[in-house]
């Protein structure tokens, strides 16, 4: 009593890279725009506020780029030596940067000269950041110290001297104005609390730490150093959550996607890897031309900016989705059509008779259900189907063959329909997955249409094309067999299992045999 069972469409595994949501998402960017900087790009930072400009630190300059501009809209170049780590404040109005000479400079975005200069570090300052309350600046330097500065009166408030090597990275908590995290070449990442004057948590990374990142919630900390990216659970007192080793050179920069679902890491091995923050598995990876030093994502992942050691800044913009909107403009049924009758509340004396849900059937299934076999075959021979999903066409042909009506369905076609059928054969006959059934179809067509050959130049041409294809394929198979024979000789000397090779051998033989039979037939036909 079961209803009509639709035809099973044979699915074939898609070879190559798996298509997932992530690959689709991360491949949906335009070709990168390359901008040449003066030196290695050590830091890229996006302004958190619209219009989402970004500051690029390279050599002794800081360039501010607009979203789509290839030329800097502003340049801060008043550094005596290399500048480091130009970072926007949360409101996007102030910019702070360290420099090789140990100075920390604060700029107004609209101005040119530094607003404040914080003097106190004796060596290069590689990392600076604003605290969550916006009024303080944190800086870490090669003199092993971490300092907290007050912006209004440009004074040093605190100094932490707990690190025993260069402090090269750090960040302040976005939630708590008193918390800051620094990573150092002494292999440790320390979390400081400005209220206690000392580190509250210290974790051992194992390698010189190149980059640290706090999750927006502040509960998780990511540190990168050496080939490792490690994730720490700060709420458990700095327990190691996961250690990732997916790069084969030092990881230099970390970045979170705007949704917080994906973590990106850039490395000297010229790759950017995308991790899922749920499972910490690599879901995608990008390749770049040179070793990557810095990486930033714009608001809503609109732009990926990567800075490299050779001074090239690569900017990728997301493809606009305007096209999609246009196509989905088609009017859909209103909401009430879907809930029609569904929200009826059963009254006391009512007997509810639910209508059996209607199973959706494809058009060809409807035809097959009613035994309209030629119609069903016509439907799957539409160019739309044959080009996009040839497996559907082949499955229907197989089903017709199973029902024993394939010859009936193939017969009685005019020139146009026949050439369409022959086109499909020419396109797909040589594919091993379709070959067994399509060779059958080719034989049947030749049998059926042999009497009318020579009546239509279009069809004759198609037949000749098919013949050429079959000949070519036979030559090809013969060559393959020769190669296999040679390889078998080689393998026989190494006395291993030859099983897999004999397997292929057989299938090829089969293909060849059947192809030759088709060839003979088509030859007799063309001769006549």
């Amino acid at each position, binding site marked *: *009593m*079961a209803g*009509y069972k*639709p035809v099973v469409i044979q699915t074939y595994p898609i070879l190559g890279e798996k298509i*997932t949501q992530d690959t689709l998402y991360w491949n949906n960017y335009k070709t990168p725009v390359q901008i040449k900087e003066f030196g290695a790009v050590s830091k890229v930072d996006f302004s958190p506020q619209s219009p989402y400009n970004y500051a690029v630190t390279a050599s002794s300059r800081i360039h501010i780029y607009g979203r789509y501009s290839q030329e800097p809209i502003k340049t801060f170049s008043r550094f005596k030596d290399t500048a480091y780590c130009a970072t926007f404040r949360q409101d996007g109005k102030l910019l702070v940067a360290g420099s090789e000479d140990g100075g920390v400079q604060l700029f107004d975005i609209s101005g040119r000269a530094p607003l404040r200069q914080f003097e106190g570090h004796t060596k290069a300052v590689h990392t600076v950041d604003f605290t969550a309350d916006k009024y303080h600046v944190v800086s870490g330097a090669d003199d092993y110290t971490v300092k907290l500065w007050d912006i209004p009166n440009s004074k040093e408030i605190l100094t932490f001297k707990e690190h025993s090597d260069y402090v090269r990275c750090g960040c302040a908590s976005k939630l708590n104005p008193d918390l800051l995290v620094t990573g150092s070449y002494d292999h440790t990442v320390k979390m400081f609390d400005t209220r206690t004057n000392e580190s509250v948590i210290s974790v051992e990374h194992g390698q010189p730490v190149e980059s640290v990142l706090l999750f927006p919630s502040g509960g998780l900390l990511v540190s990168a150093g050496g080939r490792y990216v490690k994730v720490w659970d700060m709420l458990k007192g700095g327990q190691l959550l996961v250690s990732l080793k997916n790069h084969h050179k030092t990881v230099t920069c970390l970045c979170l996607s705007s949704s917080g679902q994906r973590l990106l890491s850039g490395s000297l091995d010229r790759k950017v890897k995308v991790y899922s923050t749920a499972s910490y598995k690599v879901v995608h990876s990008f390749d770049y031309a040179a070793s990557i030093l810095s990486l930033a994502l714009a608001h809503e992942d609109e732009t990926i900016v990567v800075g490299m050691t050779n001074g090239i800044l690569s900017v990728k913009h997301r493809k606009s989705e305007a096209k999609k909107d246009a196509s989905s403009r088609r009017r859909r049924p209103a909401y009430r059509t879907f809930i029609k009758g569904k929200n009826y509340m059963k009254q006391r004396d009512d007997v509810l008779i639910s209508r059996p849900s209607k199973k959706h059937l494809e058009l060809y299934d409807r035809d097959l259900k009613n035994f309209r076999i030629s119609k069903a075959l016509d439907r799957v021979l539409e160019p739309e189907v044959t080009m996009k999903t040839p497996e559907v066409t082949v499955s229907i042909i197989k089903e017709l063959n199973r*029902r*024993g009506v394939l010859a009936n369905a193939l017969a009685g076609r005019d020139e146009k329909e026949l050439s369409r059928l022959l086109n499909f054969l020419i396109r797909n006959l040589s594919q091993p997955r379709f070959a067994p059934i399509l060779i059958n179809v080719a034989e049947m067509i030749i049998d059926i249409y042999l009497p009318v050959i020579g009546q239509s130049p279009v069809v004759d041409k198609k037949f000749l094309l098919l013949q050429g294809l079959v000949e070519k394929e036979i030559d090809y198979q013969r060559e393959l067999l020769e190669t296999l024979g040679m390889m078998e000789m080689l393998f026989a000397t190494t006395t291993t299992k030859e*099983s897999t090779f004999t397997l292929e051998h*057989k299938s090829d033989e089969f293909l060849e045999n*059947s192809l030759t039979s088709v060839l003979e037939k088509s030859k007799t036909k063309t001769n006549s």
Partner: protein
Amino acid sequence: MVEEASLRVVRCGGSELNFRRAVFSADSKYIFCVSGDFIKVYSTATEECVHILHGHSDLVTGIQLNPNNHLQLYSCSFDGTIKLWDYIDGILIKTFIVGHKLHALFTVAHTEDSVFVTINKEKPDTFQLVSVKLPKSSSQEIKAKEISFVLDYINQSPKCIAFGNKGEYVAAVRDFYLSVYFFKKKTTSRFTLSSSRNKKHAKNNFTCVACHPKEDCVASGHKDGKIRLWRNFDDDKKYTYTCLHWHHDMVMDLAFSVTEGTSLLSGGRESVLVEWRNATEKNKEFLPRLGATIEHISVSPAGDLFCTSHSDNKIVVIHRNLEASAVIQGLVKDRNIFTGLMIDPRTRALVLNGKPGHLQFYSLQSDKQLYNLDIVQQEYINDTNLIQIELTKAAFGCQGHWLATVEQWQEKETELELQMKLWAYNKKTQGFILNTKVSMPHEDHITALCFCNAEKSENPTLVTASKDGHFKVWILTDDSDIYKKAVGWTCDFVGSYHKYQATNCCFSEDGSLLAVSFEEIVTIWDSETWELKCTFCQRAGKIRHLCFGRLTCSKYLLGATENDILCCWNLLSCTLEWSTKLNVSVMGPDPNSENIAAISQSSVGSDLFVFKPSEPRPVYIQKNISREEVHWGVFIPRDVPESFTSEAYQWLNRSQFYFLTKSQSLLTFSAKSPEEKLTPTSKQLLAEESLPTTPFYFILGKHRQQQDEKLNDALGNELVQLPLTENIPAISELLHTPAHVLPSASFLCSMFINSLLLSKESKSAEEIPDDVDMEEEKESEDSDEENDFTEKVQDTDSIDLGEDIMHQLSKSEEKELRKLRKVDYSWITAL
């Protein structure tokens, strides 16, 4: 201790349900069908078997309701008896001994004391319709001698005979003839269609006949798919017929709707039930995809239900509006069994090929199909010439967690399509769900399939052996990523041995060794590393069966060859332990013991040998278990172990051996005496329990409630008598009165208790009759208008019963109580 009679081979269940038309009870609540030597009574609402009527000693060939008492059922059988049954209670009422082999049974309403049966007299192919007078007698067994001849040269099948228009005439068809016999005139008219020599009418043969319930109209079905409606057949010259043609193949059965006869039902090989309205070609309705050829159609006397019997041993109950409402499915038998007999480790159900492309799970305990698993999942095209996809192999693995199936389709020699499917058991849906589909797992036919069933094995492993000379090892691999969780099967290893065809494969009990036979050679592989360990070759023909010993005999490997040699190898010494000449056709190990059963074929019949591999002497031998070839056999673990003490039967203690013969009868061994039948222990759900509440139910419910009340009263009486030896009137009074009539419990409680403590306050005997009189008078005064006779009787009855209550009541209270009771009684009688 079971008394040990000699071991007998018994047929166990799975008998045909579609042998004859099913018959509805008068109220359409039950449906009867013949099933081997039994008659089965099913509930149409629940599909449950309510009764099995035992009694006939041979195949039951016909059943009909007794036209004079619709609670009784006639049945006839090859054993020459007609039996009368009370089907509600499942009791045999009477047996009429006719003496001939009875082939079909008919009853007609107006001939009260006689029934019609089909018998064959002299030649094997000529049958006669005779009327048998059933003598009235009180004894259980009566000889019915009065046989009067009605029609000669008729078809054996009851489909070819029909009684029309309240039994005025009978129509019978055979080959190209339609004969009509009129009872009143006692004449026969015969109509002949043009014979087969004419090419146009090559398939004009009659196949079935049906008579209109009201009009003089006979419908006949033909082999070419036509239906002819005959009218005016009382005249040999003026008769006419009209043709209805939809079926493209033989019409298997016809039936008119009972009440008006306005619609005609027909069915055939297309498995589509066609309803012709008003006997016109245009007005027809269809119920398609019934699954298999329709063999019989029957209509309930009330006219609200139809039912169709199908060739796959199934009865479908269909509503008047052509909606299938219930399916009664027996063991499907009409196909070749390729998969053999298997046991589902979960349900202990027997698993084998079912409907085309399906695997059926059949419960041996309840003789019922549990469910069908659609393996092929393709639309089934009902065409005799078509080559269908065959389900050739199946195996269960990992305690029923996995099921592997192989299906093949071969149209020509070179074109072989193979598909292997792996099904995972889903606990939520309690069924198998397709997990992996492998197309063309091998280049050639798959000959064997086995799972590694060792308990310790962490990874499920499957081995397939094929004629292409390879065996492949498939393992379950984790295929999940962050987007989805998935497990699938992949090929792990491909093995071969000198390009011989692999014919069998078998895992040892602990899963450490795999034995694969390549034609004459048995190879042993290590299942860890897939290294070839050793080979055995006896040069005694191709290996047909292969199995490892179990438990204490696990060091032995058994192989049966085509040259009738059974070999036993010792795996420790790698030598032949023993061999014997035995033509083994079936070999199966018992999962619960070391025993192995082997069935050998000879020209006379099949013999069973049960043996342990370690001992050269068989445990048990039974010669000639079946005349036919035995195709498959399997041990099924018993739910409750038996306790045979005698050594010969000990092998049956923990498992039972079932086997399937060539004619597809399922047989087993029983040591019980023939009287103790293998009765299925099915719960007998009655129809009432699970009836849905429809408006009809509420209307009909009134009658039923009354019946129930009576029943409850009767029950109440019995219950009272159980705890008390004396029949205390107060209690019976209390229980006789319906609950809603009684005053509140608190009001009655003290009175009731007091009534039980009557010893002290004993009244004198004279006072009582006075009391009664007085009360009677008063009562008549109270109720002038509703002074029923019945009521009075009731009251007088109850008074002497309830005297102990009464004397405790004040007058006003008494009045009150009486009033209450009267009012309510009148209400009930009004109903």
